[in-house]
């Protein structure tokens, strides 16, 4: 179906089902229960899951296929956001032109940076791409927000003011980003017993965009172009002596992944019309690298898992404070309760960076293929256990 083979079609359908049902899946605990802390089904976080999923899917096209490790993609996300907010400021709150422009601007910007950076490979390429977001951030934070020529609004971030022109804004349209009148923020809350589920327009827009981009990425992975990119990663020398010019291939991959980043930036701005300079810091690029690797670089679904994992951590673990901990352990005798809180305390709340760092190291050390690799290993282990049991019961199945 959709020009994909059976396995990929199944994967696509699974991802589609997961994203469409996310409001249910992410809110498994009743609203008032102690476990509600771990619910992630509120609009903002759901939007972040899929938007950063898009960002990571795009990054994976470059890093997963060609092996070029870029630290520059945050810059494309950032310019995408700025472009979208400028559309909001000057023309209209309609997200369609905003997102379109953010993709175009990111494409141009990544073409420029890619053209320069891809003249080198390996760590030299990484450092070159590291230089660009750092410069972009520094300039956006200060010089480009000077009163005479305020392109970025610096520290606060670019936002829409009441006195902005908004030339195509009409009465009756929402005063917030909308898609042809459908406000990104309208949410329908469904209550079933003690549970509550939020269905947010913005989330579903992002989810549909993500499905489209995911589908495109599957197509790219399975296309001759995708194979060429894998060949670049495998052996550039052989590429060259086979009559293939590697640079346009890598540049195309770089620009495509830059456009994904710009799209993610545009969507971020569409969900929340503010573009902060921190989006361009190299650590923000580092984050997408972490997502991709954590999930499994070069795999189709890995980057989405990685993005979800890190965003969940950032938003859920950072909110666990001592009061919450006391609540968890309140069934224990007081002394033990305090002790447990004392043990757990450094790893949650303000310590979430520590937990993230440790987990990240564990994944890189023990699961080089990321979470997908982990899943496959568990799958294999289960299967091999099954086979062993088969053997003991005497059935003779051909081993693989």
């Amino acid at each position, binding site marked *: 179906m959709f020009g994909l083979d059976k396995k990929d079609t199944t994967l696509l359908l699974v991802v589609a089902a997961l994203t469409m049902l996310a409001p249910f899946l992410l809110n498994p605990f009743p609203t008032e229960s102690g476990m509600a802390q771990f619910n992630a089904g509120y609009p*903002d976080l759901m939007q972040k899951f899929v938007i950063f999923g898009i960002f990571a899917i795009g990054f994976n096209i470059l890093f997963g296929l060609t092996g070029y490790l870029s630290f520059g993609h945050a810059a494309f996300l950032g310019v995408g956001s700025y472009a979208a907010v400028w559309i909001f400021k000057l023309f209209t709150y309609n997200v369609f032109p905003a997102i379109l422009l953010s993709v175009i601007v990111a494409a141009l910007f990544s073409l420029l940076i890619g053209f320069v950076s891809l003249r080198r490979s390996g760590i030299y390429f990484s450092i070159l791409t590291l230089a660009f977001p750092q410069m972009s951030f*520094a300039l956006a934070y200060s010089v480009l927000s000077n009163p005479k020529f305020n392109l970025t609004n610096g520290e606060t971030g670019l936002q829409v003011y009441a006195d902005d022109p908004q030339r195509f804004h009409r009465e009756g349209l929402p005063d917030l980003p909308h898609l042809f009148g459908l406000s990104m923020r309208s949410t329908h809350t469904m209550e079933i017993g003690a549970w509550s589920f939020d269905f947010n327009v913005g989330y579903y827009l992002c989810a549909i965009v993500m499905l489209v981009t995911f589908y495109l990425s599957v197509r790219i992975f399975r296309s001759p172009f995708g194979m060429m990119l894998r060949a670049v990663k495998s052996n550039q020398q052989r590429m060259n002596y086979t009559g293939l010019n590697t640079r346009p291939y890598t540049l195309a991959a770089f620009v495509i992944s830059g456009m994904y980043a710009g799209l993610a930036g545009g969507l971020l701005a569409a969900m929340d019309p*503010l573009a902060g300079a921190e989006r361009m810091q190299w650590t923000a690029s580092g984050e997408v690298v972490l997502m991709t690797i954590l999930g499994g670089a070069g795999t189709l679904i890995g980057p989405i898992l990685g993005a979800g994992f890190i965003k969940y951590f950032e938003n859920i673990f950072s909110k666990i404070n001592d*009061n919450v901990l006391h609540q968890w352990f309140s069934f224990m005798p007081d002394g033990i309760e305090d002790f447990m*809180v004392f043990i757990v305390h450094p790893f949650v709340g303000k310590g979430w960076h520590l937990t993230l760092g440790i987990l990240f190291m564990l994944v890189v050390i023990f699961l080089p293929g990321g979470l997908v690799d982990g899943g496959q290993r568990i799958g294999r282990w289960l299967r091999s256990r099954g086979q062993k049991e088969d053997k003991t019961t005497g059935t003779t199945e051909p081993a693989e």
Partner: protein
Amino acid sequence: MSKTDVTRRGVIKTGAVAGAGLAVPTIFTASSAAAYTNEPTGGEVTLGFNVPQTGPYADEENDELLAQQLAVEHLNGEGDGGCLNTFTSKALKGNGILGKKVTFVTGDTQTKSDAARASAKSMIEKDGAVMINGGSSSGVAIAVQGLCQDAGVIFMAGLTHSNDTTGKDKKANGFRHFFNAYMSAAALAPILEKELGADRRAYHLTADYTWGWSQQESIAAATEAMGWETVNNVLTPLASTDFSSYIAPVLNSGADVLILNHYGGNMVNSLTNAIQFGMMEKVVNNKDFKIVVPLYSELMAAGAGENIKGVFGSMNYNWQLDNEGSKQFVKSFGEKYGKPPSNSAQTCYAQTLLYADACERAGTFNPCGVAEALEGFEFDGLGNGKTLYRADDHQCFKDVLVVKGADNPTNAYDTLEIVEVTPVEQVTYAPDHPMFAGGALGTCNPGA
């Protein structure tokens, strides 16, 4: 390990019973039964404390969070009641707010606009917070203030010193208890004139972002008005760690005052570097060289250590302030946590109480009602002396402290000494002052 019993399991259970079957938070919804965003329906009301738990300002957060927990205790009638005893408004009874027990949730701003908005959103969307309190930079405050305006909850700004927060970025749902760059300058100028003379040549080092510019503009205007000359203003990148190449040119510039429009780590490093270059021992134009840091905080003072001796600056509050509210607050805070409160702690504490009091007086949590109750509200007894929340721009007006690094501190907490309490009249400005122009308060948004 401190803990409050506010959200112990027992409480949660009753909350669950009370809340079962009733409406749960519906945010940003056009069609909702609630009259306003996150209308509390059970026996509890949730406040959101949005503070930088990670990143360079994490220690500031610690104090802010402690103060907010203390405020919640006092509101719920636990502890010694703190400033509820001295507050001139007697609406608060120590039985929560409007009879509802106060609980709180926390979020991490990471001192980044994006992350701060994300954590504020999670507190509003997921936890049903009716108010967001805290923060430690102007960028974050303005970003979150805009969000709260859109979402329809009240925002109490925390530590934000930029003129823009209640200037061009002011919002009807946002209030600021902290003072601002203009007030710092207005309070400092007369003292600087008295202590350093009216004939000085000033060299500015300014953090190269919005707050830095606004601070520099304010202080340059105020000092030039009394006859000082501004020799140079050099912008330094936020990411600078070593300021030697910015400090060195000061030596030969003919300036006799160095003004460091820096905050946090930037200020600690630039001041340390300036002292290293022997600035404080220099004599230029037959005058002792002086250093001014317009915005001080206790943590910056601690970070700068010995270097702050004799350096002038301004503060929103200092625990040594001698009034009933201040004494009461220092006692409550000190007995619970074993140290005096910082000025950001006091800000967050006062804001929490003020919000609660406004709800009581308005008889509702509806942000429009609360905002109306806060607008033009005059009170005393929270530590800053007599204070007014101006209706025009939601800026609070009160005395500003001019402080100086103490020459002979006796312990870790009196490294700053109060030089002067500049009366509120001197720091008041018209709402349409050019430095605050542009932008409009708009109308309050109850969400829903």
